[in-house]
């Protein structure tokens, strides 16, 4: 049974279909990529999964249980976490506090403050931000803010992590570090569903890739299949 699946997922904004009849699934342990030209509905799909937006039609299931209709905090507590395309760190709070929030609220378990703080510290180390634990999150570089978002999401002990353009705006060195982080997350046993524009990252890291265009799924397959798919190439070159 896939850890995440969607059937006929559709979202209309007024008369415009941002996502149209998309079926998808993510199996446990996979890293699945979601690509497509700008405006193809990728982030909207993530928003529908995480319940930031309500679906117009369609069903989304997490571990077999229907999650469409739940609220974001409920979905988070079930084990589905995400990062955001436009980084949404808590800018005026110290880095540690950002992660602490996830530890304290992101799981149904009630943790003591001490344990939560300890966990938060460990996560900061995992993503490499221990040195800046007391810095206000808004003062970090973009790359670090993205790492903070990852740490914060991980604090909620997800089994499935949605990464929305983790590598956008990063220079090549930072991209390599991000890719390495993604591998390490997978090594922890967390399934990953990631939106990305940086092709190198997607091709190297993902087991499977889905392609969206104008809100519809136009292709799905292994990186090799996608790279050689006529449809996909046309869509991207036609831009």
């Amino acid at each position, binding site marked *: 049974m896939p850890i995440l699946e969607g059937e006929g997922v559709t979202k209309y904004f007024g008369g415009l279909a941002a996502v149209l009849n998309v079926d998808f699934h993510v199996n446990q342990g996979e890293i699945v990529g979601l690509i497509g030209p700008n405006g193809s509905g990728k982030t909207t799909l993530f928003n529908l999964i995480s319940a930031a937006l309500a679906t117009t039609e369609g069903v989304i299931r997490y571990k077999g249980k229907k999650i469409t209709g739940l609220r*974001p905090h409920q979905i988070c507590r079930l084990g589905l976490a*995400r990062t955001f395309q436009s980084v*949404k*760190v*808590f*800018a005026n709070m110290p880095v540690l506090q950002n992660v602490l*929030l*996830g530890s304290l609220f992101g799981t149904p378990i009630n943790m003591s*403050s001490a344990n939560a703080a300890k966990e938060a510290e460990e996560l900061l180390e995992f993503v490499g931000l221990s040195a800046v634990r007391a810095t206000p999150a808004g003062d970090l570089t973009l790359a670090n803010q993205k790492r903070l978002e990852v740490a914060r999401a991980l604090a*909620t002990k997800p089994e499935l992590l949605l990464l929305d353009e983790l590598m956008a705006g990063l220079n090549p060195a930072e991209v390599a570090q991000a890719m390495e982080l993604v591998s390490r997350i997978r090594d922890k046993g967390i399934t990953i569903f990631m939106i990305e524009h940086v092709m190198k990252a997607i091709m190297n890291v993902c087991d499977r890739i889905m392609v969206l265009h104008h809100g519809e799924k136009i292709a799905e397959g292994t990186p090799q299949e996608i790279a050689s798919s006529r449809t996909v190439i046309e869509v991207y070159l036609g831009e």
Partner: protein
Amino acid sequence: MDITTFKSRRFWVPGLLLLASAALATLPLWVGSYWVVRLTAILMYILLTVSWALFSGPSGYMSLATAAFYGVGIYTSAILLPSTGALLPLPLVIVIAGLASFSLGLLVGALTLRLRGIYFAVFTFGLVLLIQRFLVWWEMTVTHTRGRIIIVVDDTIIYYVMLGIFVVALLTAYFIRRSRSGLALQSIGENEEAAAHMGVNVTLVKVITFAITAVFMGAAGAIMAPKLIYIDPYIAFNPLISFIPVLMAIFGGLGQFYGPIIGAAIFAYLQEELQASRFADYYMLIFGGILVVAIAFMPNGLVGLIQRLVQKWRKGGSAEQHANT
């Protein structure tokens, strides 16, 4: 409204508070009743301001409902403590007033805190007027009363009750602020969507915190009521009571816990002085001017301003601005 978030590990703040309260408790023994009355008012403004800042500060949801909760408290007293004879003992009346305000807070919060902050602000803005008008109608058409005379309560007793509410309110505010709920509230103010995605039940946190702040406002109104002697909807529900704590909190600065306390203490004292002087008429004018100046030039309040100046002085001229603008 910017907030610094470095949680200071000052465990001595509640200790200091209790110490100050103990000192204040002995006050009536060695000052005249004039000062007792004035201090009651100052304590009230501080607790109203701190209560307001507890919710509206970190969350960014500006509540203008203070006067509504305060008025509910006044009316509870007016109904349960008529001059014809108290229907219930005073402490119980205070508690009931707090509960009534809590209920109203839950209702208002549940209705409007699911929406954007601007809707919440404008809804609470008109709430006082609404309750006022509704009560006038109710009293004219249903109960056929007009105004109530309230029982007389000794100034010293009022002072002690107010001091009690003050201590509870400030301790509650302090501990909530430092608790995980305080962290949640702050994260909501920083980025509500992200907070929700990290597992925070944002609506619940907002509504409960908001309702808690209402308790103290209601209790304060309940104990101040006897000083008004005659109570009608216009007297009990005065929109100014909503605006003044906001002014005091902004002036003091929302960054630190003690910002609103300082702002309220200074302002409440000034207000009393002003009312007694020949400039009493200029009260609103002056306060308005100060607020405009404060917003324009001291968005982080007096405390923020002092912090910046201290930083500048420490670094010998090169001010490194962190989260404060």
